[in-house]
């Protein structure tokens, strides 16, 4: 199986600090890959490499290659806006714009353009249906998004990303601000979405990683220690450091 996105000997420095050390990982398409590891291990940094978000931080140096469908995303002439449309991101805290529900969805279309032959109203409905939010909000599409519950806001943020038809969804601790029932809903949604999208999730929650992902990557101090099927990683990890971390003996 060809990787959807992969890194080759990826190194990243924040000034003098060596944050990612020779990371080689090939993310399988249409599946959920969880990146786990202790705070500061580089998992969010790695996630942000996939849509070149780290470059917004001054002093960052990146070496190595990142291939999206085999093409280097760092090569000259890469259209950053197009890259970020293909590789969308959902953040830890739901961050809807202070606009109406419908305007949150169509905002991205104004930046990235509307696909030919599609109406905004259809895109709003389809994106909200994909996250099972439609039935809950269809009668108040022009109400402020910030009036929604945190879980609804997070689903709206996912809808907003889906509206621009990405191929990869990057999720950085997408449930850490949600209660267990809302978390359950988002995890169900992730499983549904993984049939069409490649999802990469960073999580501190080990149970979430084991419940939701098909592939798991364990990182420690900037290195990718182990990557493999989640069942194997959580049943019989090959590296003692992985075992120590997932069974709570780290540190």
């Amino acid at each position, binding site marked *: 199986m060809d990787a959807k996105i992969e890194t080759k000997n990826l190194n990243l420095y924040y000034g003098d600090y060596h944050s990612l050390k020779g990371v080689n990982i090939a993310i399988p398409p249409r599946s959920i890959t969880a990146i786990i590891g202790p705070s500061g291990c580089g998992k969010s940094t790695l996630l942000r490499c996939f849509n070149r978000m780290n470059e917004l931080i001054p002093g960052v140096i990146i070496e190595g290659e990142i291939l999206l469908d085999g093409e280097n995303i760092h090569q000259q002439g890469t259209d950053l806006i197009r890259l970020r449309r293909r590789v969308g991101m959902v953040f830890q805290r739901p961050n809807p714009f202070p606009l109406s529900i419908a305007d949150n969805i169509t905002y991205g279309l104004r930046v990235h353009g509307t696909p030919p032959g599609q109406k905004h109203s259809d895109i709003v409905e389809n994106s909200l249906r994909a996250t099972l939010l439609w039935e809950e909000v269809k009668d108040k599409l022009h109400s402020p998004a910030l009036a929604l519950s945190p879980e609804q806001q997070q689903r709206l943020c996912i809808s907003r990303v889906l509206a621009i038809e990405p191929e990869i969804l990057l999720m950085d601790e997408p449930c850490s601000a949600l209660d267990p029932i809302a978390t359950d809903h988002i995890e169900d949604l992730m499983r549904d979405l993984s049939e069409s999208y490649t999802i990469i999730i960073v999580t501190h929650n080990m149970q979430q990683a084991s419940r939701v992902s098909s592939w798991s990557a364990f990182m420690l101090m900037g290195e990718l220690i182990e990557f493999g099927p989640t069942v194997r990683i959580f*049943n*019989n990890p090959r590296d003692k450091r992985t*075992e120590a971390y997932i069974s709570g003996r780290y540190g």
Partner: protein
Amino acid sequence: MTRHFQHEIEKLKVRILALAALVEKSVRNAVTALAERDTEMAQVVIGEDREIDLVEVDIEEECQKILALHQPVAHDLRFIIAVLKINAELERIGDAAVSIAEQICYWVNEGHTDVSYDFESMAKKAQAMLHNSLDALVNFNAQTAFEVIAEDDKVDEIYGDVHRFVRRGVQSAPHQSGGFIHLLAISRHIERIADHASNIAEVVIYLVEGRIIRHRAKDAMKQDTFGNGSQS
């Protein structure tokens, strides 16, 4: 939470080893009762099985509690699964000891003791398998576990001998067939103890190496570098 969890795991280990000690004692007493035709000792074996049954249920509940509250993974998860399976095997070994004890009572009380077979070698092998399988568990030693599995064939061979002995006996002395049938039943239960010990050994290999070799233990032994199985 981790320290608490470690404590729970240690407690569980102590409990399964305590059950193992009870079961080994029960088998030892059954074998002694057999050698000495001692029905009183056989009754002790039957009476003490109740305790084995209670401890088995206790251990299972303990495992359920740990799974529900701590959601262990990796080696910890395999340890809980291993304890659950070994727990059931030990309880069944206890039952086999009781069955031997019951057969001894019938055999002696029905006056069949003029028909007999020297079970010493078979019983010793089955007991050694049980002991070594538990040793493998204590030390997380896959090599010892593989050796236990290899021993099972020898017990099966003796079981075949008993079969032939009983068949010949029933043909030549049909009036004593009742005695022969008790001997056959006793040998069957000893053979089952060896089988359960072999199952425990397979679980230990799963615990240590994370692979299930059940139903293909012999192939696994051939493929494996025999003697280098331990990763503990």
